[in-house]
């Protein structure tokens, strides 16, 4: 059966891919997608840990992760769409009037 | 009943200040209330003086304030504090009188800050709990910042901010040292105490004592001010209103000195004793440097400011020598300098009100136009030069003659320094009083109020000049205590 480390490593790689997506992409929606990937990676690690420690706590946590992800996406997309509607651009770096 | 009197003396002005704020819409009423409050406070201090002379034991108050930090509301009154409080109450009363006509906008706030600074200063002179001392040490800076900043002259904001930053930087460094001492004391004796008497029994290694003393010394040096950190004083004085200058020169500089010999020396006797020569050098630089620059000044207030740097230099020399004569000499000199410099600032303020500028070349030949003002000007100028028969002479001769007991060359150099003082004072008198008047419009001579103010100071100046013994007897006890105070001070005594 898979080695515990390998699953954790998979989770880690997914987390880093999500992070890279957040850093590289300029589109707000893509950044949100990156965050989703990172949350999903955490889920995988939780499930692996739960299997490793033989306790269902990890799996319960994944439920909450999903709830959080859903709520975040809902609010996030609403916010992004509203701001895109007002300022007409989806690019993250156009929002730089507040600086200094 | 007497211990209650101490707290009453401290917080009466604060309470009065709040009342004045309540009457902010009637400027005249504010002035009268604040006059009443300062008068009452002076009366309280006066009868405290009477009671103190009858039974001259130190009066103490010791209440618990913040239990978790072991901070106590501890006050103590001895000869030195009594004199300084008397000076504070007297000068603040004069400040209220002096700014009767000159302060017109936001009168209530002005008097509030004036009374708040009085509370700060009196509290500082009485506090024996290090934290309470530190609280009053920072509290006294804020009202003066506003006094200079709001009612000052043209470039007031820059001067106020500069003054504030200098003072608070010093005091924050003192905070670190203060906590350091308390913590070391706690590690040695197990209980947290801020009282000065308890703290000076802590045994410190030479290095830590050196560092802690350096922090305290820097805070006091900024306030005195000693040579390298003095540049805030001329700016603060030139921009401050007359009352502000009187409070600044008359009281705040004294708190620096007071801190030095009440806390600096007793708490760190070893470091103080070793670095006495550094203090001497700084004192001498102050004495000569201040007097020399005063000669090159064109602005009268700036000249008097540099002159007070020079006078304070002499006092620091007296302190650094740390023997019976020079110590009582410099403490007496604190009172004298407070009176004389305040009088000079009041006079310069009056001249400024009349001729509209503080520059000397605009103020020639005043003797013919205003004989009474010029008479007072000459009297106080002579007092600041140390003419025998007036008050500064007593202090100076005690410091300089007493200096021979410990370091003769210091006394000799000090006498030379006195000549430097004479050079710029005579130039000031000459360019202000003598010669042909620059303009021929008639300036009014002193009004009754102004004569009363200057007359009061003149009487005290002459009284101390001719009969300083009552003051010196008051100082006898505390000075002996400071000298022979704690056991590790004995090394100094033998010196």
């Amino acid at each position: 059966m898979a080695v515990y480390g390998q699953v954790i490593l998979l989770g880690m790689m997914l987390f880093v891919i999500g992070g890279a997506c957040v850093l590289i992409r300029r589109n707000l929606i893509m950044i949100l997608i990156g965050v989703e990937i990172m949350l999903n990676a955490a889920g995988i690690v939780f499930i692996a840990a739960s299997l490793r420690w033989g306790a269902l706590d990890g799996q319960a946590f994944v439920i909450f992760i999903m709830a959080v992800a859903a709520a975040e996406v809902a609010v996030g997309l609403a916010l992004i769409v509203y701001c895109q509607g007002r300022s007409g651009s989806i690019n993250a770096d156009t929002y730089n009037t507040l600086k200094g | 009943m007497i211990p209650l009197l101490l707290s009453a003396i401290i917080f009466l002005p604060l309470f009065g200040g709040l009342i004045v704020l309540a009457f902010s819409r009637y400027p005249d009423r504010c002035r009268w209330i604040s006059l009443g409050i300062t008068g009452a406070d002076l009366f309280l201090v006066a009868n405290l003086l009477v009671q103190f002379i009858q039974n001259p034991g130190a009066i103490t108050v010791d209440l618990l304030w913040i239990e978790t930090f072991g901070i106590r509301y501890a006050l103590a009154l001895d000869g030195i504090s009594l004199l300084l409080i008397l000076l504070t109450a007297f000068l603040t009363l004069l400040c209220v009188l002096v700014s009767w006509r000159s302060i017109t906008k936001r009168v209530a706030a002005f008097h509030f800050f004036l009374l708040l600074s009085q509370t700060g200063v009196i509290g500082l002179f009485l506090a024996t709990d290090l934290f309470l001392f530190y609280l009053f040490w920072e509290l006294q800076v804020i009202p003066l910042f506003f006094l200079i900043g709001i009612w000052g002259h043209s470039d007031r904001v820059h001067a106020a901010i500069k003054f504030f930053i200098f003072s608070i930087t010093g005091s924050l460094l003192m905070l670190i040292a203060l906590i350091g001492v308390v913590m070391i004391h706690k590690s040695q004796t197990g209980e947290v105490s801020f009282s000065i008497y308890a703290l000076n029994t802590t045994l410190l290694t030479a290095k830590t004592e050196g560092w802690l003393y350096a922090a305290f010394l820097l805070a006091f040096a900024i306030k005195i001010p000693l040579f390298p950190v003095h540049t805030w004083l001329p700016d603060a004085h030139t921009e401050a209103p007359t009352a502000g200058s009187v409070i600044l020169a008359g009281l705040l500089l004294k708190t620096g000195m007071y801190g030095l010999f009440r806390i600096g020396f007793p708490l760190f006797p070893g470091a103080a004793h070793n670095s006495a020569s550094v203090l001497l050098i700084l004192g001498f630089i102050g004495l000569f440097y201040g007097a020399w620059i005063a000669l090159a000044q064109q602005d009268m207030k700036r000249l008097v400011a540099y002159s007070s740097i020079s006078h304070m230099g002499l006092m620091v020399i007296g302190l650094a020598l740390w023997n019976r004569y020079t110590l009582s000499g410099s403490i007496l000199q604190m009172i004298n300098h407070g009176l004389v410099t305040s009088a000079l600032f009041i006079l310069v303020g009056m001249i400024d009100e009349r001729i509209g500028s503080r520059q000397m070349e605009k103020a020639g030949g005043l003797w013919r136009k205003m004989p009474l003002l010029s008479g007072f000007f000459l009297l106080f100028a002579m007092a600041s030069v140390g003419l025998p028969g007036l008050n500064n002479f007593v202090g100076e001769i005690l410091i300089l003659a007493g200096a021979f007991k410990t370091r003769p060359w210091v006394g000799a150099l000090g006498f030379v320094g006195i000549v430097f003082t004479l050079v710029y004072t005579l130039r000031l008198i000459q360019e202000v009083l003598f010669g042909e008047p620059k303009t021929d419009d008639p300036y009014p001579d002193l009004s009754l109020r102004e004569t009363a103010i200057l007359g009061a100071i003149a009487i005290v100046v002459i009284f101390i000049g001719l009969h300083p013994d009552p003051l010196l007897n008051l100082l006898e006890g505390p000075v002996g205590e400071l000298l022979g105070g704690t056991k590790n001070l004995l090394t100094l005594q033998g010196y």
Partner: protein
Amino acid sequence: MQSDWIVILPHLFLAGGGLLIFCIGAFWKNRPDGTLFITALLSAGAAAVEALAFSGSGTPFAGMVSGDSFSRFFIALFCGISVITLLFSRRYALHRRFSGDEFYGLILFATLGMALAAGATHWAILFLGVELLSISLYILIAIHKSSQAANEAGIKYFIMGSAASAILLFGIAILYASTGEMGIVESLNAPDSRNPLFLLGLGMVITGFGFKISLVPFHLWTPDVYQGAPAPVAGFLSTGSKIAMVAALLRIVTGASPPVWEVIAPVIWTLAALTIIVGNLTALVQDHIKRLLAYSSIAQMGYLLMALLASRGDGAGASAVIFYSVIYAFMDLGAFGAVSLVSLGEPMARADRDSLTAYRGLGYEYPFAGALLAVSLLSLAGLPPTGGFIGKFALFQAAIGADYMAIAVIGIIGAIISIYYYIKVIAVLYMRPTRVPTPHTFPGFSGPVACASIFALIVLMGILPGSLLEVIAVILS
């Protein structure tokens, strides 16, 4: 397992109040003016009173929310913060057309989130509390839809917030993976701290906390969000969310085992030093008051962290942290509250009155708001008559007491630098010539009440801090 309901009664009040507000908003169309505001006040007040009055039994509720007096104190503090924010934002929200049920409801839910985060003994509750807090704040910041700055602030906080909570979550996952413990304290007192997986998880959790408390490498969002967000919300954000995370961090620090602490201490030390220096330095050249307050709040967090280092063992540090958090909460709320009172007169679309030139001679134009701002700034600077003075003293006493001399010196240097920009603002308020006064809009009753109460509290804490210190000592014992 038998759960002690008393423990979560305050949470219920908050949650119930929130739901009630949304029901009123939805069903009771022609309700009298201000009912939402009153219900929000009542529920927050009730939660605070309940938290202080009834002390539940020691056992944590459902094994996750601790009922000890530590968290009850913080719940009361959060409710106090939300009450004051509500008071300040009453007229402000009405004037800017966002005083609907969303605003009041979300304030209560945010307070609930803070209470959960501060009181959590289980990672799940901590994470959910933080998330509940963050999501309600995402909306609260962008609540003033017509202001472009608020939108931008909302976006920035959302993106950064979600990324940071993803990191926090992954950290918790790794911690669980390495220790198998879901309880916060249990997971942290692993026998040997050399276990690398544990360190990886710890690093990520610290980063997550770092973002929320806006420590220096992760602070970049703070000035922009505070400048963009409406003033009361900025106050709420700067005090509430930070203190909740500080409480959680305090629980972690005091709970961690010595080997774990030996790992955490250097990281916290570097973060504290960086935060104090960069926070204070950058504030020097700010010419917008909300950005300046943002940087000052970053610096204040640096000081708190300094005391956090000293909070193990005899507890002088812990009491200093709690005491200073209370004082900090009221100082910052006072400052942002004053800004909100002052910017009532601003035209609707524009953001608050922000640039310092607009504050010239304001001390005379708005005497009450000016006085509050001045006292809060004096207190932030740590000057005598105010609570900040005693607070700063407590912090430094704790730091030096625990032999963290180096950080104390950095703290003092930071304090000296901070004096300049606090005084610069006070000088602008009172010493610069007054510009043309804008027409005064009626500030209503709630604003001045909050203003007076904070003013009194700051000065009272400066003169008689004994009572609060005793309460804190009781909590920690």
